[in-house]
């Protein structure tokens, strides 16, 4: 399939700080491409370089076969961007904001009213058309910001945290809209903190850590990569007091919540044996035992080295082991 975004050695330094380190990837036409990473990993810098808000220090990217260093104005004609903040004009109404964007993006005058009405209807804002942007709730502001990015029917969409600030229903309807847009051949590049969202929406996901892409694959393959290390979860009839962590050598990255122990079992048989022994020793029953195949979050956690607070606490208790 034709590459619509081709990133070649893209690099960004802020003085001495290397924010994005020679990254390469391609996004195919009509693909929903996810860009994940912890805070400060270089996601926003990458998206800013691709949309022309930051000049790369080295490397470049081609969007629709046009160079972002030379042809950014032409590229912007076919690109819609939803920034992570809702930054339309407080003093203008929903209708005026979209009319302004339509003019700025060269939507023919004859089509503007219809296009604006259509988008307001799609995003459930038609009855709020005369309300000033500044007076809308944050969820409605987000919806209008997304509508503004779609005003010129772009064939590439950049979403920076698209559902952040949206209520459950709005987030759900945005996800269906993204699927509908995909059907029409629109390419979507999105960054998100919601790993489940990326799992549901994206065909491929790149994970960036400290400015480098550490993996790029389909969500399914990313999960499979970690299937060699299943998670085991056991629930006891009551919490285990004074647990000797030395008894849990067979389980890695142990997380204890109330009467549940969860961790990664390198050897499931040994892990079950150890947990059964603990139950007998503490005179508690095993209510539930389960092995869980890794999900995308597990893959993300392992790749980025990010751990939940509970994991960190547990690690400290174990003297840094595991």
């Amino acid at each position, binding site marked *: 399939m034709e590459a619509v975004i081709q990133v070649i050695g893209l690099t960004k330094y802020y003085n001495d700080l290397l924010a994005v380190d020679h990254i390469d990837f391609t996004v195919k036409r009509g693909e929903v491409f996810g860009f994940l990473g912890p805070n400060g990993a270089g996601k926003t810098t990458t998206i800013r370089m691709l949309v*022309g808000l930051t*000049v790369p220090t080295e490397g470049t990217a081609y969007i629709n076969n046009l160079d972002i260093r030379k042809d950014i104005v032409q590229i912007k004609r076919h690109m819609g961007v939803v920034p992570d903040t809702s930054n339309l004009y407080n003093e203008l109404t929903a209708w005026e904001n979209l009319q302004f964007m339509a*003019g*700025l*993006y060269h939507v023919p005058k004859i089509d503007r009213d219809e296009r604006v009405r259509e988008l307001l209807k799609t995003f459930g804002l038609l009855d709020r058309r005369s309300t000033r942007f500044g007076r809308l709730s944050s969820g409605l502001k987000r919806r209008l910001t997304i509508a503004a990015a779609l005003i010129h029917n772009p064939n590439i969409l950049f979403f920076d945290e698209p559902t952040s600030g949206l209520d459950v229903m709005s987030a759900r309807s945005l996800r269906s809209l993204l699927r509908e847009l995909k059907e029409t051949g629109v390419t979507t590049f999105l960054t998100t903190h919601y790993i489940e969202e990326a799992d549901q929406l994206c065909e491929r996901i790149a994970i960036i850590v400290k400015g480098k892409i550490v993996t790029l694959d389909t969500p399914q393959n990313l999960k499979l990569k970690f299937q060699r290390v299943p998670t085991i979860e056991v629930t006891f009839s009551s919490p285990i007091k004074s647990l000797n962590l030395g008894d849990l050598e067979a389980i890695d990255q142990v997380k204890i919540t109330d009467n549940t122990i969860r961790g990664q079992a390198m050897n499931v048989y040994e892990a079950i044996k150890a947990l059964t022994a603990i139950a007998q020793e503490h005179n508690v029953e095993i209510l539930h035992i389960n092995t869980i195949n890794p999900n995308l979050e597990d893959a993300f956690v392992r790749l980025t080295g990010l751990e939940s607070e509970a994991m960190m606490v547990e690690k400290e208790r174990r003297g840094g082991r595991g």
Partner: protein
Amino acid sequence: MREELEGMWHILLKDLKAYYFKPPNISWGILFPLVLALAFTLRNPEGLADMAPGLVAMAALFGTTSMEAIVITFEKRIGALERLMLAPVSLTTILLGKVLGGAVFGMVIAGVMTLISLLFLNMIIIHSFLFILVLILTVLAHSALGALVAVSVKEVFEAQTLSNYFRFPMVFLCGVFLPVEAMPPPIQVLAHFFPLTYTIHAFRQALAGSFILGLLLRDLVALVLFLTAFLILATKLLKRSLK
């Protein structure tokens, strides 16, 4: 080119609607020249006709730079300027749209001041076309100066403080109260580094009806050069923010 002009037009209309033509700004736009005229009438009732061109120039200076700097700095803060920078138009077009907004507002304030001067301060304009041409170049040049100040700072209060660094010296150095020729030679040299000097000089010629073509051309060219220089510098600074 057509698309760039269209973009500039929409930015201008948006700025007028969202910021400039709001009731508090309109009332300030009328009150400021009124108070200015009244203050000078009370102080010096005889020499008002002489001072009128200076007052019109001062109204244009304050009318353009004050709001222009606020609008751009405010948009920078809330991320709305970045939204404009995502649009398929050049940075120069964005700045020109902004400069036109400030210029229209400055033109309104200077227009009110001109009206007051004509009606109450005995000002007579012999060459109306020349007067309007100078006024247009003045509001454009000073609006571009406002844009330059705004893109070089981060906060609204910084824009105001920085504007005052050159606005107040300009009022005293550029011939608003006293003709430049009557000032000490070093100050006369300094005065020629400010666009307002050329505005007031050209205004006086338009009002008097007699002018030396060479000097008039010098004034007009100087205003065009200031406008161009301020725009180029502002665009460079805005481009640098992308680095």
